[in-house]
């Protein structure tokens, strides 16, 4: 088994080859899909739960308190206990709710976040599928989640839920533009939409350093719009606890509520992953041209650690935002997008195109 922590290409190819050698191509494909499905399911659950744990610890740290500290060492198993509790809770069905849509909504939300993981390169050669339109795919998939939120709000037959759903609809559709355009800025620089290529191009410096000022602006806009797209504070208008009790998921209980909850955290993880991949070089170690010893030393750290580290930093920034800022109002939120972020973004793409055309290279 050719297992190499620095390069998973041979390892994944070995699995692929041995499967196709042992059975017919059809069954090999089925097996491959199942393995990937199971691995991702486990990954999803673990990451989702531990992001919740991390959020509770970080928010505790910011708010001068301890956070969960009873179940297991440092409360490490608290979220697992919470999940078990949620699994055992009764699922409450509401009279006059649209039953079909009410039941489908949480699944749409969770499936879209699940689909997005498939395209993310976790390390060299470690991704389920490497589309040549990877960036586009991620955009397309992540914007589908809003359908789930709208359905949840509509079908609950609750006035608060409907307001929450309408807010989230307006919000996500608007901020989708900024997310897309800020990614386009980098696509212009990279000249490709394939994520593995984008990462490979950052071998001699991450795009945030290589891309002059436009890449930096694009990164700021991406993080802002990304937080808005995941419905997290300060853009958590769809939930807006103090105004709408719980927004679109007011009427959900038990595991269906947990689906919304987990999906929110996974969306955050996905946004952070995309930001890390596109702007901070994904699994690519920190390299500076001309510093051979430094680059060589950085290469010793496995790519997977780089990837997790960068994602964690961005997730921390997002949590920091949430626990520091008050919430925006809906008109201010839309003003921010349509009057500020979008024009800046359009200009930014133009600037980047100009820089690429002129061939100005920082290093």
């Amino acid at each position, binding site marked *: 088994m050719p297992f190499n922590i620095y390069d998973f290409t041979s390892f994944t190819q070995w699995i692929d080859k041995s499967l196709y050698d042992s059975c017919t191509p059809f069954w090999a494909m089925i097996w491959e899909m199942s393995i990937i499905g199971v691995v991702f399911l486990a990954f999803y659950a673990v990451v989702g739960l531990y992001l919740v744990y991390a959020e509770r610890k970080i928010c505790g740290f910011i708010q001068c308190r301890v956070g969960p500290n009873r179940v297991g060492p440092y409360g490490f198993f608290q979220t697992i206990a919470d999940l078990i509790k949620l699994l055992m809770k009764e699922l409450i069905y509401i009279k006059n709710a649209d039953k079909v849509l009410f039941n489908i909504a949480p699944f749409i939300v969770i499936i879209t976040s699940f689909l997005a993981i498939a395209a993310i390169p976790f390390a060299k050669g470690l991704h389920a599928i490497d589309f040549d339109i990877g960036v586009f795919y991620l955009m397309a998939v992540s914007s589908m989640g809003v359908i789930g939120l709208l359905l949840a709000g509509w079908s609950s037959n609750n006035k608060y839920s409907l307001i929450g759903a309408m807010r989230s609809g307006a919000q996500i559709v608007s901020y989708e533009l900024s997310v897309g355009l800020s990614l386009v800025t980098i696509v212009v620089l990279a000249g490709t939409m394939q994520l593995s290529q984008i990462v490979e191009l950052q071998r001699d410096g991450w795009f945030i350093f290589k891309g002059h000022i436009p890449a930096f602006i694009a990164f700021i806009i991406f993080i802002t719009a990304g937080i808005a797209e995941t419905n997290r504070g*300060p853009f958590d208008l769809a939930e*807006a606890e*103090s*105004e709408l009790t719980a927004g679109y998921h007011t009427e959900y209980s038990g595991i269906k509520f947990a689906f919304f909850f987990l999906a929110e955290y996974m969306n955050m993880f996905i946004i952070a992953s995309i930001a890390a991949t596109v702007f901070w070089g994904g699994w690519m170690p920190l390299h500076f041209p001309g510093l051979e010893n430094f680059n060589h030393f950085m290469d010793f750290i496995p790519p997977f650690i780089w990837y997790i580290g960068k994602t964690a930093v961005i997730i921390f920034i997002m949590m920091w935002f949430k626990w520091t800022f*008050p919430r925006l*109002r*809906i008109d*201010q939120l839309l003003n921010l997008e349509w009057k500020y972020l979008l024009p800046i973004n359009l200009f930014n793409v133009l600037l980047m195109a100009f820089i690429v055309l002129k061939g100005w290279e920082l290093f």
Partner: protein
Amino acid sequence: MTVKLQIKNLEEQEYTINMGPQHPSTHGVLRLVVSLKGEIVKNVQPHCGYIHRGIEKMCEKLTYQQIIHLTDRLDYLSALISNEAVCIAVEEALEVEVPERVKYIRTIMDELTRIASHQLWWCSFGMDLGGLTCFFYGLRDREKILDIFEESIGGRLILSYYTPGGLMNDIHPNFKQRVKDFIKYFRKILPEYDQLLTGNVIMQERTKGIGLISKEDAISFGFTGPSGRGSGFSCDLRKQHPYGMYSKVDFKEVLYTEGDTFARYKVRIAEMWESMKIIEQLIDNIPEGPYSVKMKPIIKLPEGEYYQRVEGCRGEFGVYIESRGEKFPYRLKLRSPNFSNLSALNTLSKDQKIADLVAIGGSLDYIIPDIDR
């Protein structure tokens, strides 16, 4: 045909939502029936009475010492100040002069109460705006005041410390030191509040120009306390009709003329500074002496009408007593600041967004038991 009718009907219908009695931002069991047009609030109708306990009626069968324990339960965040109104009313009716020591301690306790109340207001106002961290910052510092109360008084929320003629018991020997420590600590901490919330762009955008009320309207609605002073209505009873030691200490009446949510916010932050100034002037000079005058176990007020008002944490708190010379008051009427402040909610939040309604409600800082009584 039927489809058309239905659509017309939908347009005519008002989208009403019930905020409360169980809702995170109504700070208790207040019920607001809000008519909406999209996100815009068209009409707000407060429904009171969910925590009506008939305190005024109950007072008609209680002696004056017992009434103290009920006035605590009105505005539970300014419990001591409400007590003081009853005590001063009784003392003035009987023409009893309380010792200097009592006046000093009462004033210090009042100001501590005011700081604690404004801290809790700051917590919940931050939370109304969606900044959840504020809640823990405020409560952390309020805890220190509650500890001071607990040491001297025994209670933490429902204090019942004052009694007609003085205090229930003397202050704890540690009291002076702990208050001084707290002031020293809080002078350093209060700028942190500004850093976290006041200076925030989102917070300022959310509050500036929202919930405007002019000085004339404020006066006609009976706005008092920080809410009234945010509109430039000079209504600080500590200056206008000084009681306790307020005439002898040096402090400013905080006035802002903007009349919006942000002005009301800034008044309260500034009042915390002023309260600290008052406490600092008094804490070293508490005279020795008795902590109470000897009063009869059963107080009978001479026949007549008595009214005493004090500056509560949310505005003017008044006690009207009509006595027929009995040991019980014939009639007792309470003028609670929150009730008047709440009456302006519809005017303030008309044609604003739902989020603004919550922010305005937070800036009025209403305490529901005080409204319902």
